[in-house]
């Protein structure tokens, strides 16, 4: 099984390059992450992030054969060889497959991804009806891997100002929450040519999300709410 992997070590001063690797027939995946771990045993300079190895922590987002994926849940079988593994696109590379997620998490923090409710805390918990709870399905499951945002051309051209699909999905997740009381402030924050309206609905985010979520639909719902508020 042949691989071509992006290598970059900023301390060496050398330009980034693609390095070829090969795993013999004895190796039996099944996932891209298994291959990376096997290659790292041979070449311990190879750097990548991983933690839970089952698609929950969101730390091993990489670009495999041109597509943003989680290495740990992407089967090697069926991938065109040599399997090309690169860091997530359009983020600064720290080393090899490790990218600087700072811009990504800055946008995430900016949408205040937590409940805002100034009423006194109830004795036990803030209750929701099953219907209210159901509105959060398809929103709360986001693992913040960055696959969607780094697949988004609107983010590529304005990474410092466009929030990106992941942060916008979370913005909607808290607007949609019946326990949250800050909808007006959240909409005020989002109503901006850069933060929200860079999204042109090309659906790359929906296409790549490893959790099958739909940030574009969330953006649509935010826009619908803005229209409702304005008219």
């Amino acid at each position, binding site marked *: 099984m042949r691989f071509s992997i992006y290598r970059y070590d900023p301390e060496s001063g050398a330009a980034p390059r693609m390095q070829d690797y090969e795993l013999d027939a004895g190796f039996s995946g099944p996932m891209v992450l298994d291959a990376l771990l096997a290659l790292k045993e041979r070449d311990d300079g190879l750097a990548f992030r991983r933690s839970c190895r089952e698609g929950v922590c969101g730390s091993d987002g990489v670009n495999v054969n041109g597509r943003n994926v989680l290495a740990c849940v992407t089967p090697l079988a069926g991938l065109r060889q040599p399997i090309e593994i690169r860091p997530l696109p359009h983020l600064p590379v720290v080393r090899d497959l490790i990218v600087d997620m700072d811009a990504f998490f800055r946008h995430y923090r*900016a949408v*205040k991804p937590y409940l805002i409710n100034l009423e006194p805390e109830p004795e036990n918990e803030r209750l929701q009806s099953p219907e209210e709870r159901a509105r959060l399905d398809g929103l709360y499951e986001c693992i913040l891997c960055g696959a969607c945002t780094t697949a988004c051309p609107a983010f590529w*051209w304005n990474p410092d100002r466009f929030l990106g699909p992941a942060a916008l999905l979370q913005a909607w997740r808290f607007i949609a929450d019946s326990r949250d009381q800050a909808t007006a402030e959240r909409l*005020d924050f*989002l*109503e*901006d*040519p*850069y933060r929200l309206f860079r999204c042109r609905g090309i659906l790359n985010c929906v296409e790549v999300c490893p959790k099958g979520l739909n940030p574009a639909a969330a953006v649509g719902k935010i826009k619908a709410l803005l229209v409702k508020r304005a008219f």
Partner: protein
Amino acid sequence: MTARASGARRGLGAWLAQRASALAMALLAPVFLAYAVAHAPLGYAGWRALFQPLAVRIGALLFVAALLIHAWTGLKEILIDYVHRLGLRLALHFLFGLAYAGCLVWAADILWGAA
């Protein structure tokens, strides 16, 4: 959080205008097409006669206006995405604004001047 609490509170109008202008074009185009087909075959005189009724001229001008609004909002998106130098972006805004306004006046002139 370093970002300002409130957005620029713009963008919704342009987004709606793009959809509204698309809708206007989608409604006007088939109506005109049906109208033209109903009067076929069309020679030069027949084509001119098509635009004699005031309603047709108003409809045609509205179509051109919708087209230009659609193009203008789309163009602004492209400039925001790709032209990051403010001076150049404003200059392009200005030039395309002038050109599009000119197109609208030109269309009015064609529709009314030839009568």
